[in-house]
């Protein structure tokens, strides 16, 4: 049960800066997900919080206590590793209680904690087995048990599900979510999987190149991405970006896509600060594009939608959905629709875009406008 | 206490590191310095320039040793690699008795060079060995007396050395063959390549690093070769099968010429370094690339 505050954290490996001034603050019971591509510094940040690596600058504060100079074992944290990091020569029981034994806790208390965890994770029959005799999912469970048994202030997870197969990953994801719901412990979780991040986090920090691009709730991250990087990283398929410029005369704000002088999109109803001839990218998520006008009317209510003429070029069937690639004046746009709808390839058609859900980005700064 | 905890890993390595610095690098430095002095029975620390090196390279005996090393190294490498490649490729053809054959090919590696030399000395014995056996088969005039013929005795060292080490080279190549991605070979088979051209054009070129390692190991072994020469020919007849390692110990402990002996040791060290340093460099580069 703890709060975590990180102030201006910096770290270098040799000459390369891996953390360039990280600032974060989460409350007791928050589930913070650090999300980003590989090499963005998210694992380094987690290791630094744990004390497994030292920072060069900045502060890490757990429950109003600065922990920078404390050993990992003194910080009262628990860590679940990607490879599970079970001690190969010890059986499951010994693995789980090893940390308690190091802390010279009485035998009775150790047994009590062990029983609690064994019951919680339902691993009674595994206790005497060695890690090599466990399946991937079982190892994952034991690794969780080893963290839970300590009842720490903060749980740290480093891509704990990435070595599991797809089905097991979803199961374990749900279990982690349940654990968080039941115990309300502060958690910090590193992943490169956006679905994991969205489903688990109460707060998400998207990292890129040693910096935090956006630190927000999952909802805001998805619907109000701060930058092209965030918009592109979250969502599958990713957001469409239509390149073009703004024309502003009198009270009419219009967006002209590149290669098109006649047909524009009217942006009047969007509360935005754009200037005439601004070069921008118009971001639209594939699920905010509709095939039928009624749909657009029903979703937007205020009739804030645009009609665009496109040519369907490719059609990918993925079970309950289909993804269609359209050509819009030479730019590619993806749309996501129910697979029950039939779309004829290479037959020009009109699409309806929900303008309440679009994001505008400055082409130069790549930031949200 | 805190300091101790933080520096424990360094403190633990420190004694070994100190030993390494003193007994390896310090000693090499000492030997190098003594090679620049006129030391005879005892070291004399008065600087004498490169006279010992000049003396060394003017000695016919050193030239014999270097020449022998050259002959030995070349033949040793060619024969070991030839045998190693052939045996490893043949063993790679899904042979059922592979384990048994490997055990036989490799056991000489468990024997010391002294044992190896003793055995071959008996087999190559000019009157009682192979020669006698062939004579008894009916070839009365057959002669095989390389062991006691100046100019030929060096080849007996090659024979025994190849016998001892070629199985090991086979093992290295076999490990290399086994680590090659199966899919490349499958692709070649789909393309219609014959077994021979698969090996010649695809597999062996992919084994370049293994060839490199094998050559480095063999050169290293041959420069260090001392025991085998002592056991088989003791450098004889005369000095005809001397090698630098033998030369060095004879000068140091027989002739009390420790300045000269040090100069020859430094020559050996320089030769090994010239091969090992680039090799280690490329190996470490490769290791880093993998990461």
């Amino acid at each position, binding site marked *: 049960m703890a709060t975590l505050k990180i102030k201006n954290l910096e770290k270098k490996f040799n000459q390369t800066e891996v953390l360039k001034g990280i600032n974060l603050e989460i409350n007791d019971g928050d589930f913070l997900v650090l999300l980003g591509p590989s090499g963005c510094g998210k694992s380094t940040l987690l290791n630094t919080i744990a004390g497994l690596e030292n920072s060069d600058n900045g502060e890490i504060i757990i429950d109003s206590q600065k922990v920078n100079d404390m050993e990992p074992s003194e910080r009262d944290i628990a860590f679940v590793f990607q490879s599970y990091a079970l001690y190969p020569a010890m059986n499951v029981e010994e693995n789980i209680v090893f940390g308690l034994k190091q802390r010279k806790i009485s035998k009775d208390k150790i047994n009590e904690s062990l029983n609690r965890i064994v019951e919680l994770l339902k691993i009674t029959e595994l206790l005497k087995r060695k890690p090599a005799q466990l399946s991937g999912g079982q190892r994952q469970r034991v690794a969780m048990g080893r963290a839970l048994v300590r009842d720490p202030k903060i749980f740290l997870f480093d891509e704990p599900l990435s070595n599991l197969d797809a089905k097991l990953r979803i199961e374990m994801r749900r279990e982690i979510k349940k654990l968080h719901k039941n115990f309300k412990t502060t958690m910090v979780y590193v992943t490169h999987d956006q679905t994991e991040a969205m489903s688990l986090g109460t707060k998400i920090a998207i990292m890129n190149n040693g910096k935090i691009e956006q630190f927000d709730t999952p909802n805001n991250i998805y619907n109000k991405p701060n930058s092209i990087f965030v918009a592109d990283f979250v969502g599958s398929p990713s957001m469409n970006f239509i390149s073009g410029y703004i024309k502003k005369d009198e009270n009419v704000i219009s967006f002209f896509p590149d290669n098109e002088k006649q047909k524009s999109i009217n942006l009047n109803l969007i509360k935005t600060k754009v200037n005439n001839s601004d070069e921008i990218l118009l971001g639209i998520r594939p699920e905010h594009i509709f095939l039928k006008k009624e749909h657009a009317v029903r979703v937007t209510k205020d009739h804030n939608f645009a009609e665009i003429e496109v040519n369907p070029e490719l059609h990918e069937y993925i079970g309950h959905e289909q993804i269609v690639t359209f050509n819009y004046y030479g730019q590619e746009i993806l749309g996501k629709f129910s697979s029950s709808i039939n779309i004829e390839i290479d037959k020009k058609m009109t699409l309806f875009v929900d303008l309440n859900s679009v994001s505008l980005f400055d082409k130069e700064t790549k930031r949200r406008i | 206490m805190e300091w101790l905890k933080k520096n424990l890993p360094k403190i633990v390595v420190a004694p070994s590191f100190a030993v390494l610095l003193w*007994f390896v690098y310090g000693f090499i430095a000492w030997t190098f310095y003594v090679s620049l002095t006129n030391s005879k029975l005892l070291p004399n620390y008065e600087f004498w320039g490169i006279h010992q090196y000049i003396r060394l390279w003017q000695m016919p005996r050193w030239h014999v040793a270097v020449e022998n090393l050259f002959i030995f190294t070349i033949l040793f490498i060619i024969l070991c690699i030839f045998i190693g490649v052939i045996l490893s490729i043949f063993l790679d053809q899904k042979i059922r008795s592979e384990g048994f*054959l490997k055990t036989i090919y490799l056991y000489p590696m468990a024997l010391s060079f002294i044992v190896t030399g003793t055995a071959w000395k008996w087999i190559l014995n000019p009157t009682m060995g192979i020669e006698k056996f062939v004579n008894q088969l009916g070839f009365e005039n057959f002669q095989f007396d390389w062991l006691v013929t100046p100019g030929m005795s060096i080849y007996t060292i090659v024979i025994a050395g190849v016998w001892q080490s070629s199985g090991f080279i086979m093992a290295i190549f076999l490990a290399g063959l086994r680590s090659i991605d199966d899919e490349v070979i499958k692709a070649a088979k789909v393309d219609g390549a014959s077994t021979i051209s698969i090996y010649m054009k695809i597999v062996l070129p992919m084994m370049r690093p293994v060839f490199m390692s094998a050559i480095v190991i063999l050169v290293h072994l041959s420069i260090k070769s001392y025991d085998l020469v002592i056991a088989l020919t003791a450098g004889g007849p005369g000095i005809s099968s001397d090698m630098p390692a033998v030369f060095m110990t004879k000068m140091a402990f027989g002739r009390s010429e420790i300045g000269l002996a040090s100069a020859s040791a430094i020559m050996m*060290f320089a030769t090994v370094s010239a091969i090992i340093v680039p090799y280690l460099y490329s190996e470490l580069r490769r290791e880093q690339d993998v990461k």
Partner: protein
Amino acid sequence: MLNKINFSRIFLFLILGLFVFYYITPLYVMIVTSLKSMNEIREGNLFSLPSTINFDAWKIAWGGRGEGTSDTFLKPYFFNSLKITIPALIISTLLGAINGYALTKWKFKGANLIFLLFLFGTFIPYQAILLPMARTLGFLGISNSPIGLILVHSVYGLGFTTLFFRNYYVSISDEIVKAAKVDGAGFFKIFFTILLPISLPILVVTIIFQFTQIWNDFLFGVTFSFGEHAPIQVALNNMVLTSASVKYYNVDMAAAIMAALPTLVIYILAGNYFIKGLTAGSVKG
């Protein structure tokens, strides 16, 4: 097609068989010679089998003829070698293990450079250190003693053992050590309770490698010891090189087999570990 396959298969086995013959012959010659009497050796040839199995040569090679001082036989030297080999291999293996652990799992500044220096140290020709070593042993008053040779073998084995353990521990996930740190274990606790119990394979490889190296050593033995303190390889060489007018080839061969027996037995019992050690000891990095 079938014929062609059969033909190449036969050729394959022919060549492989030929090499079996090549490698096995010297051992065969050693064994049969050691079992013959000198008369039989003079009359027969290298490959002829002994008429009766006769262990006299073995007895003489091991325990001598009982002819007083000029008599050389292996028994005392065999135990000399054991006295040197076992302590030296224990010391170098233990130090190598802890070095390998510290250099990989507690990477400090300069750890890589230190490893590189160890690695390079395994390649040096020993001629470059013989003279200063002889003086050092003299200075310490341990030349021509088992202690001296134990020191020499421990020191020059250290590079190899460090290398073996370093390469083994590099392949073990760092996360295990991190997990133990979070759990509150320290440097030695992690080594002894977590890493050492899973180090058996590399421990066996290292011990076999060191045993073979030290047992088979001749250069250090002949340089730093003489007379009754010599190790077995030196004694064997002295026996064979004896200046006596009559050569006893059967005794020489029996002695050679005896000197080779410990390493041969290890090779036969643990061949895979043996080969792994050799490969790791030469194909570095």
